[in-house]
């Protein structure tokens, strides 16, 4: 957006005498990952490794890791290195485009992947797969991007093994 130009662009449409005004609100945000998620994201970026975290009380291993167990309300600090392979627990194939949100073009698959040693699923894209033959229970492996930024999508997708 060149300097001096308004960020909000108004457009008025006349629909048989009923006027509607189009607008767009662009609000920049800066989201803090926090210490725990930062370690997870750095693991993806620098080591191509996926880390989970274990609750000291209920022993659940969460991935992606978070600071607080929502069931026990305790802080977690025991890191667990998880493999990059797991089982596709369930999935869907998205056929509609949401260009402002989706990172890829439809049709694409995403699902819940249960990594070995993890108790929660990891929601991610499924790639390099014949979408028509995807099945629950099949093994998948994380594929990392060559250029990584410390982002969840440093894992490009999980592909069938």
């Amino acid at each position, binding site marked *: 957006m060149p300097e001096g130009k308004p960020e909000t662009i108004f457009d008025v449409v006349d629909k048989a005498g009923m006027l509607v005004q189009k607008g767009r609100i662009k609000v920049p945000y800066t989201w803090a990952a926090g210490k725990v998620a930062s370690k997870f994201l750095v693991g993806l970026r620098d080591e191509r490794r996926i880390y989970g975290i274990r609750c000291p009380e209920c022993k659940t291993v969460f991935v992606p890791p978070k600071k607080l167990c*929502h069931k026990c309300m305790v802080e977690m600090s025991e890191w667990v290195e998880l493999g990059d392979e797991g089982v596709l*627990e369930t999935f*869907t194939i*998205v056929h509609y485009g949401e260009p402002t949100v989706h*990172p890829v073009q439809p049709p694409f698959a995403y699902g819940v992947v249960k990594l070995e040693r993890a108790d929660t*699923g*990891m929601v991610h894209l499924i790639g390099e797969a014949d979408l028509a033959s995807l099945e629950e229970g099949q093994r998948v492996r994380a594929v990392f991007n060559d250029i990584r930024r410390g982002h969840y999508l440093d894992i490009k997708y999980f592909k069938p093994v």
Partner: protein
Amino acid sequence: MARRTAIVGIGQTYHCARRDDVNGQELINEAVTRALEDAGLTMKDIDAIVIGNMDHFEAINYVDGWSVDGSGAFMRPIMKLTTGGTSGMTVATAGYYHVASGFFDVVLAIGWEMNSSSDTTAAITTCCQPLIERDFFAGAIGPLAAEYTAYIKRFGATEEDAALVSVRDHNNALNNPHAHLRTRITVEDVMKSPVLCYPIKLLDMCPRSDGACALIYACEGKAEKLAPRPAWVHTIAGSRDFVYMGEPFQHEELITLERASARAYKRAGITDPLKEIDVMELYLPASTTGVKWMESLWVCGRGEAPRLIREGVFNMDGQLPVNPSGGPLATNPIGATAMIRVGEAALQIMGKAGDRQVPNVRTALATAFGSCSWSDVTILRDTKP
């Protein structure tokens, strides 16, 4: 001890994909005016107001203040509540709490939405953790689709079972003058409609609507005078879960609904919901949920819902009619959707549901669903609790 409280007035707008003839405040006022007329009241009789919607769908913050033109809240107490898809029932619940607490005698609850103001799916996506699943979650369809994929795998349910739910709700909506979608459909129509997220197709999924609903709650002593047959609130129960889709890891069930409905049944003294409840108005955002969530409402055992659906148990002429109004598959002004469930359940108790009336309703259940995956349950009866 809570005061006994009943619903004495219900008002709804007509619902459609977009209302260009009114702004949000005017839309709200249509529902408010109709609820007041229904109860034979004027704004002078209203002691307090509760209102709710999903702020990010219209990009209007402080709706409690902004809506005063339409809500009638000028110089009255009003509070706004937003809890996602459950907003409408949260607002209804707060209306009940206002009266049951003894602080107010007659309270107006309003749920509304002008979904046409924005890209609903993009707006819904802001409920997700921005650093983790927001990128591909993109709305409510994907997670519901993935849940049903797991259910199909585990119990041998089919896409046609979900289509039967879609046909039931869409065709029930033909009897509801307020419904948005009023077109007769067949299982074949559903199966042939475009796939949105496998296995959910266009006709399996709720639309997005513009519309509003208002309810009037009154205390014992006033309720009996305002309505010949008030809908008494017997219990309200809710459960929340963490929103991360990978978390619950039991995709075949809806645990929040299991817990909330079990608590509601216990409080209302219900042991066999299939026999003891006369009608259900369920917040079913997709037809697939009308299969698997029946089990979470304890009306049948795990994996048994497809059989009951094929037998027509939940049809208008079945043992336990579900969604005589057509439910959210026919009408979905999101901030009002859950309140409409309560309102429609109340209409059934009050005997005012017109062509969609189920005979002899004495106990009615309404549910709300929001985020992934929250559940609320309200039980109404024609008798005082």
